[in-house]
């Protein structure tokens, strides 16, 4: 059995309370970090090759390094807890079961980058979890881990929880910033990147909940220990969220690079009784679909890119033979058409158009050329939108149409 890191103590009762957490040597990473020099923390995180767990897989240490050192503006940390990618349900467990681990990560990250204010942007639907976070924050203030002069180190930090209003786009980092500023959740044009001009025009670090939660372990155990739990270029474990037609859907914390087939058949108990595997979406709905014969693959960022898919949020959606791929396509196109913020042309109109065609095919009114058209339209979205949502829509659509063309064509009556 592989060693768990983030979810190790999840079974412990009342872990979310600070006294239980402290009994488990909680906040020792913060104590250790505050004795370190910020630049040594940054070095350690860089060495650990901790890649962003939100989806893009950008190395966290390098991201922090982009924040300018000498600026007279305040710097901010935004923890992305919007967790909107369909199929993804890992961050909610970290926040509900072990909120203090996240807070430790926030404190260390803030200390490392020179931040005095951090925000947790949590999706609106996670109301109970937001409350739990607020309780944890209150406890941490009381124990002196937050607020002025943390543990007599001279370091200050305030943490705020901000609830989103339910838009998928607000999980995109710059739309998240706009939303946090009280504006409409429209992604910003990049560059400038948030590291230089972010929240309220100030340098800002934005990291996913799981990414930040890894920080205390890196500090306590060192980069080498962390790398051993994953791959040399892709350190640590990963929380895989398995859903769909498996016997035991749920979250599985496993080393980075675990084989996808093993995750489905060993850890998640295999296919449900009488079901046969047809396809797997390996990293949240935005990830291009893998066919049943493509699942002997190492679940890490680079291997999946090589397979023309992506690890994304590591949300594994298992699809069985009885599921119609047209239904999958319909769901995907409906979702992106609904969640497109509408700011840029290809995403706004392209996704709606593809959704309209898909609905028509599903209504039995498909025509010759419809699939070609979907492919063409998706290609006109891919790489041409203002933010990654366009790609996130076009990639799965293209993969579905290309890999399951025969099945989709069978829904189109050609006279």
């Amino acid at each position, binding site marked *: 059995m592989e060693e768990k890191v983030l979810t190790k103590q999840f079974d412990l009762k009342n872990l979310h309370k600070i006294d239980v957490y402290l009994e488990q040597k909680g906040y020792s990473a913060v104590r250790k970090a505050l004795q370190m020099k910020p630049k040594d923390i940054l070095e350690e995180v860089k060495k650990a090759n901790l890649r962003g767990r939100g989806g893009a897989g950008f190395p966290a240490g390098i991201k922090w390094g982009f924040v300018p050192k000498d600026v007279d503006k305040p710097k901010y940390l935004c923890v992305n807890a919007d967790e909107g990618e369909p199929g993804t349900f890992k961050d909610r467990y970290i926040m509900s079961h072990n909120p203090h681990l996240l807070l430790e990560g926030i404190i260390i990250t803030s200390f490392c980058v020179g931040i005095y204010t951090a925000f947790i942007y949590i999706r609106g639907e996670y109301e109970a979890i937001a409350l739990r976070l607020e309780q944890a924050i209150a406890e941490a203030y009381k124990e002196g881990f937050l607020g002025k002069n943390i543990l007599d180190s001279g370091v200050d930090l305030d943490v705020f929880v901000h609830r989103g209003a339910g838009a998928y786009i607000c999980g995109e980092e710059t739309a998240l910033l706009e939303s946090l500023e009280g504006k409409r959740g429209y992604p910003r044009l990049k560059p400038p990147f948030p590291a230089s001009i972010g929240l309220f025009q100030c340098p800002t670090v934005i990291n996913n909940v799981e990414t930040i939660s890894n920080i205390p372990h890196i500090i306590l155990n060192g980069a080498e220990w962390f790398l051993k739990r994953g791959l040399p270029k892709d350190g640590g474990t990963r929380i895989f969220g398995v859903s769909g037609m498996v016997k035991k859907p749920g979250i599985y914390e496993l080393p980075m690079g675990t084989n996808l087939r093993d995750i489905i058949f060993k850890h998640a108990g295999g296919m449900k009784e009488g079901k046969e595997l047809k396809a797997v979406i390996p990293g949240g709905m935005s990830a291009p679909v893998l066919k049943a014969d493509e699942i002997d693959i190492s679940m890490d960022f680079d291997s999946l890119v090589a397979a023309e898919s992506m690890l994304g949020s590591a949300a594994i959606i298992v699809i069985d033979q009885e599921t119609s791929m047209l239904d999958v396509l319909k769901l995907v196109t409906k979702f992106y058409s609904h*969640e497109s913020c509408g700011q840029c042309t290809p995403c706004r109109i392209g996704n709606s158009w593809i959704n309209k065609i898909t609905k028509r095919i599903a209504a039995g009114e498909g025509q010759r050329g419809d699939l070609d058209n979907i492919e063409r339209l998706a290609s006109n979205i891919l790489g041409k939108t203002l933010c990654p949502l366009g790609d996130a829509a076009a990639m799965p659509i293209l993969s579905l149409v290309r890999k399951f063309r025969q099945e989709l064509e069978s829904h189109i009556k050609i006279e």
Partner: protein
Amino acid sequence: MVKIFIDEKPVEADDSATILQAAEKAGIPIPHFCYHAAFPPEGSCRMCLVEIEGLPKLELACSTRIREGMKVFTQSKKVIEARKGVLEFLLAEHPIDCPICDKAGECKLQDYYEEYGLFESQFEESKERREKKVRIGKDLILDRERCILCTRCVRFLREVTKTQELGVFERGIHSEINIYNGVPIDNNYSGNLTEICPVGAITDSDFRFQTRTWFLQKGASICPLCSRGCNIYIEYHRGFPRFPLSKRVYRIKARENPEINSFWICDIGRYGYSYLNESRLLKISLNNSNHRKCITWENILYLLSEKIKKLYYLHRTSRIAIILNTWLSNEELFLINRIFKDDLKIDQIFTVDNPQEKGDRFLLTEDRSPNRRGAQELGFTPEPLKLASLHPETELLLAFDPPFSSPFRSTETKEALEKIETKVLFTAHADEWNDHFDIVLPTALIPEKEGSLTNVDGKIQRFSPVFEPCGEGLPEWKILVELAKQLKLHFYDYKPLSSPEIIFQELKKQNLYSGKAK
């Protein structure tokens, strides 16, 4: 300066320039909808995507800064396909009602389709139905089906007027422009929205369904409706051979001038052009005379000059009075100075002050005439008109009528006028009050003549005629030169002053300006 290559052509531009700015400077067109030089790049229409050597994805020309040696391609296969893709998306949800759209002929979507599109539509679905006639301002109508959501309007109201009346509502394909809580756009710059809208989504009731844009001719001019001197285009219709039109001018548009009005004009300047079309005085008229029919400029100027000469020889020029206004050009004021003040030594020269109105601290000034500053710099002092204080024996009055708030159209002035033997009115407009003058001469308005004006900040701007004066009308400068020539008093040789350009040179020679000539 940075050197880059656009389509292999070397282009130099400022370090801070974007690809689009560098290309525009070099005369290489890059299509765009949302980008407007007045605002920071928005990057949402995706029309300006270009290929940059070494980069895997297409990049935005509107927001990508140039770098030394950068190689940009605006005509590569990838770029052309991307443009087609964007146009196809926009047109898929566009009503394509060009035949009834006021923007047709000057619509960017239409133009770009002609230039970069020309594909068959593959859109077989039903288009979203949206409101086609939303009143978003007193005179502004929004057609949501035509809207391409470039958000230029939203950004204009956010960044220029700072009134923020418009926003984007709803999301995705349902996104729409709307006003907040039904509160309409109410600012003096709302007309600019019709101009910056790249398609026919925002139209104004003034121009709606009036004519087709391709019938219009356009000429550069200066807005005379306040002392800012905003640069404008006047768009007018030449008319049809056998179908007379009721009006000539159809529209005023802003003409970019970064030193004065940037890209904008106010609604007073934009919509206040009816004085160019309506109640124009077409003929010379002699009241109380039996010779109405055979009057020409020649004999009327002869008549006038004889009258002036008689008074001059009798040393009675003190019985002549001249009333000016702040609408006259610098050249005209210069001529008046020379003829009446210097040569004829007339004392009674008054400049009527325009009543001050409210300015708006942006472009519109309190003074609603174009050349108050010019008149002051040429030695005239605008003051309220007091006809009653004229010399009691005044025999001849030459009055120049301003197009608005004319001081000669009141019962008081009528009474004062009755005491004067010969009253001459120079005016562009026909009016019943004109009957109280003995001679009424049709003059030209600013777009009908040449000259220069000095704006509130002392900037001198020259203007050229956009079209001919109405009827028998003549520009005042021309009338003055001809009159001076007729006088034959041999003070000063007026013959060489055959154009406002020459008079302007004369003005400059004498250093009569404090401002910079432009």
